């Protein structure tokens, strides 16, 4: 009964993904299994080398790196979207699993929540 949280929006442009990450951490805090799926422009969360200080925001890459420690089960990324946005083994965050398509991932979860 893992909850799947889907982040399909790019980082920094809105708060929706950050709120979703907060929700994922809260579920994990209460030992409720949760996974994150990044798709569409949302895969840009997963790029190495982000520096958001000039925006006055925290770097989501660093926030996200705490996910495994907090008990988030899996961080999944939409493979085709990664390809579109030039994300490959050289610049993708560690611990991210790329999947060939998102639909089968969504289909195998009973609780699915799109961010924002």
């Amino acid at each position, binding site marked *: 009964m893992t909850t799947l949280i889907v982040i*399909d929006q790019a980082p920094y442009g809105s708060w929706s993904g950050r709120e979703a990450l907060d929700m994922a951490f809260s579920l994990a805090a209460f030992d409720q299994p949760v996974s994150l799926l990044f798709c569409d422009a949302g895969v840009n969360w997963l790029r190495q080398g982000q520096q958001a200080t000039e925006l006055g925001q925290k770097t989501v890459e660093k926030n996200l790196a705490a996910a495994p420690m907090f008990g988030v089960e899996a961080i999944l990324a939409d493979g085709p979207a990664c390809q579109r946005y030039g994300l490959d083994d050289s610049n993708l965050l560690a611990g991210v699993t790329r999947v060939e398509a998102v639909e089968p991932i969504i289909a195998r979860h009973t609780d*699915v929540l799109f961010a924002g």
Partner: protein
Amino acid sequence: MTDTPNTHTLHLLNKAPEHSRFARCLQSLQPGDSLVLMENAVLALANSGLSLPEPCYALQADVRARGLSTLNGRHTLIDYQELVQLTADNPRIISW
């Protein structure tokens, strides 16, 4: 999607018809699924260019707030209690 389990899904949709996730939600509907329009998604009721699936529920508070309660259609208006009941009755939920 050959590995889709045969379970009915309740789709909670809160995006306006122009939002990309609105189309994505409608595309993913399977036979036996139910759709609930809430927040900006209830604007779909006023959009004559859209054909909505059945059963289609719309959250009364959101419909009334937007002045859409006189619209006729094949949708069913529900209150919050009925929404809770729907979430309990369906084995699978996607919040779009």
